């Protein structure tokens, strides 16, 4: 499986480590239901059979965390972008 790293180009998946669901967002620790939201954040991650947004860390490459869009049924990789860049764009 090859991951199109935005900085390094297409690289073999073995250069990466994988964290999983990239859609989660760390909750406000001072929010009214912080405990519940943190439980959700830490334990209830997306696990779809199909398109999945997930965090891959190019550990043996540029050390960038990527958001990779990949199909969990076919392993087809639709694309990857820098996690940091993505967040910056949203701001």
């Amino acid at each position, binding site marked *: 499986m090859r991951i199109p790293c935005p900085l390094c180009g297409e690289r*073999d998946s*073995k250069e990466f*480590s994988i964290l999983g669901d990239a859609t989660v967002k760390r909750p406000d620790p001072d929010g009214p239901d912080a405990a519940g939201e943190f*439980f959700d954040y830490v*334990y*209830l991650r997306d*696990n779809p*059979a199909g398109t999945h947004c997930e965090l891959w860390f190019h550990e043996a490459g540029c050390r960038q965390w990527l958001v990779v869009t990949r199909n*969990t*049924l076919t392993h087809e990789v639709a694309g990857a972008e820098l996690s940091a860049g993505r967040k910056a764009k949203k701001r």
Partner: protein
Amino acid sequence: MRYSALSIVKNALSGNRHWKPVWREREPKKAYDIVIIGGGGHGLATAYYLARNFNLTNVAVVEKGYLGSGNVGRNTTIIRANYLLHGNNPFYAHSLKLWEGLERDFNFNAMVSQRGVLNLVHSDAQYDAAARRGNSMRLLGVDAELLDRRGVQKYAPYLNFDQERFPIQGGLLHRRGGNVRHDAVAWGYARGADARGVDLLQNTEVTGFKISRGRVTGVETSRGLIRAKKVGMAVAGSTSRVAAMAGMRLPIESHVLQAFVSEGLKPIVPGVVTFGAGHFYLSQSDKGGLVFGGDLDMYNSYAQRGNLPTVEHVIEAGMTLMPSIGRARLLRSWGGVMDMSMDGSPIIDLTPVKGLYLNAGWCYGGFKATPASGWCFAHLLATDEPHQLTRAMGLDRFERGHLLDETGRGAQPNLH
């Protein structure tokens, strides 16, 4: 038809023409007391024990493929009760006891073979951790022996004691562990459940739940609606998908675990051996194939197949442990989808939906648990009370912080 040596002789003499089907092919009834989703090992065992222990036989097992097509059909066949935590090991100890009496119980030879499971250790820290775990086992009445290097050499002389990168320092030996002919477990439970009146419905895929006022009333299937007072889910590998149909999100991810078998070889490895300096385990089947496995591929997957880097990673450890296998050939590799829970331990519990019961999160330890899982899940389905052996396996333990984390890897499922 009762199976025995005599039955084989009698049938052979009449040309093997009179054997009866091992289970009946049924049409689904409109309604059952209990519907179990998943005709894998756990689902079939649950049906069997519902009938056997609770005399509940108005039960159907619905299976989207063929019986035993889940992980019971694609594992590395190891049974053991060598867990550390009190929330876990009494359950596995019970499972091991059930394995020991299983064949006479369901009159099907699953070839339960207690040839021993040896976990190697390669450092002082691993030795201490093995001691802690072995002592847990012994305190529970489960067999365990702590071997030093010489002891391992004597027990498993076929290992490589020359390699000095991760020298073998000792091992935790669990003699009652071993291997079982995995498919036969599914068939034995299926046959036993069928004989007691349970309907086994193959090629019947659940497509949705009927839920009314927070209570489940049936399941939609590819063969129509089947009503049920209670529905049990035993669909490890597909748990997130099925749970989503009932509106539930669970602390589970699906990951692919590859396993491997070599060409048939004359016996060289008597029991199960696990390497401690790299994830690798190996045993040899009664047909002669070396059966081995190791790490997950690490990415979420429902594809039942993996990639080459993991194959290599696993075999690098295998060759370090036993370089004589280099000249054997890899015959087949396959992948199973694991229900990886967030603390590495299973969930057997009620759910927020009334009448819907959950059996999930087996990570890659589901096979050995099959009898106890069926036993305890049947108890839960029949009585609405968790069996005392699964009290620690509740769904709310993550939120409450009562974790069952054997390895201390935390809420990162692919590390368990």
